[in-house]
């Protein structure tokens, strides 16, 4: 066991963890932040994407110990201060960017990383940035549309089907 301290969604947390504890298990089991999902556990699907020091990472492919001293952001910290959905979350709702919602936490965190790097991405740039996020329901179209809308771009031109 080793002690780790990190800022999770702005709050400092300290706990003892085993070497083998993945960041995603630390978040879900130790902190009970179960919004971060485990889809594949083999680094393929992106359901577990969180931000570590502002960068998107797959939390199933990083050890909790490696996040010692880091700032971690998860889906639970994304809403506005008054509890309303943030721009990206609201756009997912408005544009029907989710069906079962399993992939959605990872999609929203990946979208947030994209818009920070590239505030007005083209449709092709959105699709390429989502390469590591798999959705088994939506066919991606409305996810792409939601992210374009969240960036303040007119999405009327993107056909509905």
């Amino acid at each position, binding site marked *: 066991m080793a002690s780790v301290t990190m800022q999770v969604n702005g709050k400092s947390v300290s706990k003892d963890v085993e070497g083998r504890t*993945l960041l995603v298990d630390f978040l879900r089991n130790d902190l009970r932040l179960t919004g971060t999902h485990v889809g594949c556990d083999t680094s393929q699907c992106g359901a577990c994407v969180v931000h570590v020091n502002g960068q998107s990472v797959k939390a*199933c492919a990083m050890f909790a110990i490696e996040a010692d001293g880091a700032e971690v952001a998860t889906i639970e910290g994304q809403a506005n201060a008054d509890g309303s959905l943030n721009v990206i979350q609201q756009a997912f709702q408005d544009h029907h960017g989710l069906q079962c919602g399993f992939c959605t936490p990872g999609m929203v965190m*990946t979208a947030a990383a994209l818009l920070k790097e590239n505030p007005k991405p083209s449709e092709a740039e959105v699709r390429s940035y989502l390469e*590591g996020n798999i959705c088994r329901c939506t066919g991606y179209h409305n996810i792409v549309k939601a992210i374009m809308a969240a960036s303040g771009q007119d999405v009327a031109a993107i056909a509905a089907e």
Partner: protein
Amino acid sequence: MYAFDIERPSSIKDAVAALQSEGAQALGGGQTLIPTLKARLAAPEVLISLTGISEMQGVCLSDEGALCIGAGTTHATVAREAAVHFPGLAALASHIGDPAVRNRGTIGGSLANNDPAACYPAAALGTGATIITDKRKIAADDYFQGMFTTALDEGEIITEVRFPIPEKSHYMKFVQPASRFALVGVFVAKYADGVRVAVTGASEEGVFRWHDAETALADDFNARSLDGLSVAADGMIGDLHGSPEYRAHLVKVMTGRAVTAA
């Protein structure tokens, strides 16, 4: 996962010392090693994390004009910081896996692993890079020794990679869409004194140089120079994604496209 410890040294010296213990293994970005541990394809007792070692981080130019990259530098950082001096390498790094993989995976981990479909081995061999370890310098031509096999000794770590910067270069990758690795990838680099062509994803021997293409392109750096050449299907990988004949064909097509794009 089974139980193991993780140590996080802050210097190369401490990491090398820690790696001398029985059952110790280096941990880079973990993008290959963590899935490997989950599948129990490896079972080290202690992982020595290299991510906290600042002397293994970053991109810079040497006095001789080579691009030096610390082995712990992530693909995302290479994509950003190599762009001005060596755009061909930056573009390669920016197409490895997906953004989250690029934020963790490191150049040292990729070269140490030497996956037969990985991208960086093509750049290292295609530029004649030097792989620098905690104890020696290894020329890329001597470093790659077949699928998942390298010249590294037990406990030896890559600390830096030095790339001679070409006049022109390009990496052309035919993506295997499920894994996002290369079905076939070709790195072409043109220098004042010759051309190098390195191929990944295709051969059962791992990354290799296509010497006939190098000779033809040295005379005239134009995709047309490849017209008369062919690649034998013998020794190429055959799997559900493509037959040996298909991969052999792709080697020539991707080389031509890389030359045109360089």
